């Protein structure tokens, strides 16, 4: 009886997809036979930390496999106890493993969650996609299979914030508008030429920043920190968007402070990181963090930080700190600092004190009330208010997501967006306004910047600030300056106008140039800008 001739397997539908799209060099992982006797490519096997030992390979067997692969013409890129990374042209694979390499288009998820097709390679002889069988080849006794590498796409978040139905602010538009920065931008005041250093958890180059063309210098590492490309928490990345919202043309100088704690989300040795920022000699330093110190004396470490702040301001750097969120914030209460409090703007544009933000009189520094001015901050319980970009799956992206507003921000835990604020948002907004002032009048020193911000702020006369343990149980905002909100919400447009007037007056221009305005003219214009009562001051 004549032997039945073995039939060559019919090309499958996948094989008929043809060879176009096959790259000149193909990468794969060849797996030497596992010591457990079961191939890692058996579809039902679950490989985990407990079972991986079964899939390791004998060293001598691996060496034999490497030798044969090399003889077959493959480049050996890496050898591990599990697999051998190889590369070579399609014809080398086809000759060695008696197969055909085909390319096929499959649906996949690309950057930014974008669904698209990508080219995958396959050997049609096996059921498992991308697997080459070694059966019937010289590799049969040393390799249990060869896995063709697949295209992989970085999961980059979208530059667009996810739409949410609850009332919240978006960057840059809403924050800019609410801080009255749009009109300053229309006048050409955008923060150009001004450097703002931000000491925080790091900075992640989110597409939101890249596609808008915002400028950020490489992250400077504070003492004992690592990984300048990552922001494991997302706080620095997210809050920095507030700076760009108000001053889109600043150059951001991110300084990463050490992260610690059981979850790696707490900043430590911030003085060292602050000093690293001072060494960059920026125009402005903004810090969205602090200590709760309701009474003195200060510790040695706190005095070191106080002295660093004092030295920075003495050298002409404007320093801004968050007032706290129910904390007696330090260094916010340091008199050289511009302390950032919180005002909440509702959908109907009404303003009230944020009940999440701190306002208090310092027990450490005489005659010092915090805040000086406010930025935009949400309300309790969690101040979920400004949709901000951050590194996907970082601590805030994950922790803010669960629940519905106001307990959760209703975003995904891995989308690179989260809604949050606190006085951590207020400080960078105020830093943005300060940057506009420095562009409008480069000679302004820290005291003049603070003075202009205070004189031009929008009064907040409703609501109460947060309780500050050890100091008070809540303070109401009232007409005029108050402890709950300081002078009120920053007004970027008015502030830049006043800065320009300052620069044209006798005390303004640097270098002894001729003043364009007399002192009387300056006073008159200042009154017009700030709305001060002309009669009362005359």
């Amino acid at each position, binding site marked *: 009886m004549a032997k039945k001739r073995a039939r060559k397997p019919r090309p499958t539908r996948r094989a008929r997809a043809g060879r176009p799209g096959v790259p000149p060099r193909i990468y794969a992982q060849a797996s030497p036979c596992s010591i457990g006797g079961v191939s890692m490519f058996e579809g039902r096997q679950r490989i985990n930390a407990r079972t991986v030992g079964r899939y390791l390979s004998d060293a001598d067997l691996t060496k034999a496999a490497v030798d044969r692969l090399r003889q077959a013409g493959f480049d050996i890129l890496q050898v591990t106890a599990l697999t051998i990374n190889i590369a070579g042209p399609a014809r080398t694979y086809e000759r060695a493993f008696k197969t055909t390499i085909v390319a096929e288009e499959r649906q996949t998820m690309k950057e930014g969650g974008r669904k698209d097709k990508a080219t995958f390679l396959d050997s049609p002889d096996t059921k498992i996609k991308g697997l080459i069988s070694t059966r019937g080849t010289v590799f049969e006794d040393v390799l249990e299979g060869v896995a063709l590498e697949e295209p992989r796409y970085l999961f980059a978040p979208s530059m667009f914030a996810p739409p949410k139905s609850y009332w919240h602010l978006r960057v840059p538009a809403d924050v800019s508008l609410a801080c009255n920065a749009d009109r300053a931008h229309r006048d050409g005041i955008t923060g150009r030429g001004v450097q703002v250093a931000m000491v925080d*958890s790091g900075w992640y180059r989110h597409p939101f920043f890249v596609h808008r063309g915002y400028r950020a210098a490489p992250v400077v590492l504070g*003492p004992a920190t690592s990984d300048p490309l990552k922001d494991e928490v997302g706080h620095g990345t997210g809050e920095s968007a507030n700076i760009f919202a108000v001053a889109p043309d600043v150059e951001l100088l991110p300084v990463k402070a050490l992260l610690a704690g059981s979850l790696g989300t707490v900043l430590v040795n911030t003085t*060292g990181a602050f000093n690293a920022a001072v060494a960059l000699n920026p125009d402005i330093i903004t810090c969205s963090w602090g200590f709760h110190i309701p009474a003195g004396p*200060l510790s040695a470490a706190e005095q070191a930080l106080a002295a660093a702040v004092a030295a920075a301001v003495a050298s002409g750097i404007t320093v801004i700190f968050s007032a706290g969120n129910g904390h007696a914030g330090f260094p916010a209460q340091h008199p050289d600092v511009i302390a950032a409090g919180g005002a909440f703007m509702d959908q109907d544009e009404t303003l009230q004190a944020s009940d999440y933000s701190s306002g208090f009189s310092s027990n450490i520094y005489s005659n010092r009330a915090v805040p000086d001015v406010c930025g935009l901050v949400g309300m309790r319980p969690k101040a979920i208010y400004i949709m901000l970009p951050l590194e996907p799956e970082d601590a805030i992206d994950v922790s803010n997501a669960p629940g519905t507003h106001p307990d959760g921000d209703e975003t995904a835990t891995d989308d690179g967006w989260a809604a949050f604020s606190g006085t951590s948002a207020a400080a960078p907004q105020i830093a943005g306004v300060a940057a506009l002032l420095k562009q409008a009048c480069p000679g302004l020193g820290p005291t003049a910047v603070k003075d202009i911000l205070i004189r031009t702020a929008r009064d907040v006369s409703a609501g109460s600030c947060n309780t500050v343990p050890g100091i008070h149980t809540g303070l109401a905002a009232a007409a005029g300056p108050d402890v709950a909100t300081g002078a009120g919400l920053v007004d970027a447009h008015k502030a830049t106008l006043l800065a320009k007037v300052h620069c044209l007056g006798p005390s303004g221009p640097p270098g002894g140039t001729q003043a364009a305005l007399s002192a009387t003219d300056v006073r008159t214009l200042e009154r017009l800008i700030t709305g001060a009562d002309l009669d009362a001051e005359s």
Partner: protein
Amino acid sequence: MPRSSSGGKNASPIVSAQVLLRPASGRRIGGRDEITSQNIREYAPPAEAAALARKTFEADGFDVGPTVGVSFSIAAPVSTFERVFKTPIERSTLELPLDALPESLRRVIETVTFERPVDFGPTSY
């Protein structure tokens, strides 16, 4: 309270502390002093003292940060701190004993201290 950056499994974790220098004016840095931009010059350390301290710590294997105000940072594995200060570093450690430092250094240093973690910021926005 030293906090470390994540290191390898067997690596000694890297921690950072602030070195406060004695003011050239001879005045001490008290906890109730209001150090501001108006009086910071009174607290400034002598330049040569800062240079000496920085050089000594660098020679001992520390990464030394810029001097700003009255202090600079030193960062190194815990084992380096323990070797130089001859004291075990524990989570509760704040100020380090200066006894093991050379006399020339003790004369110019006010204190070496770890910093406690911040109370608000990344975990309470």
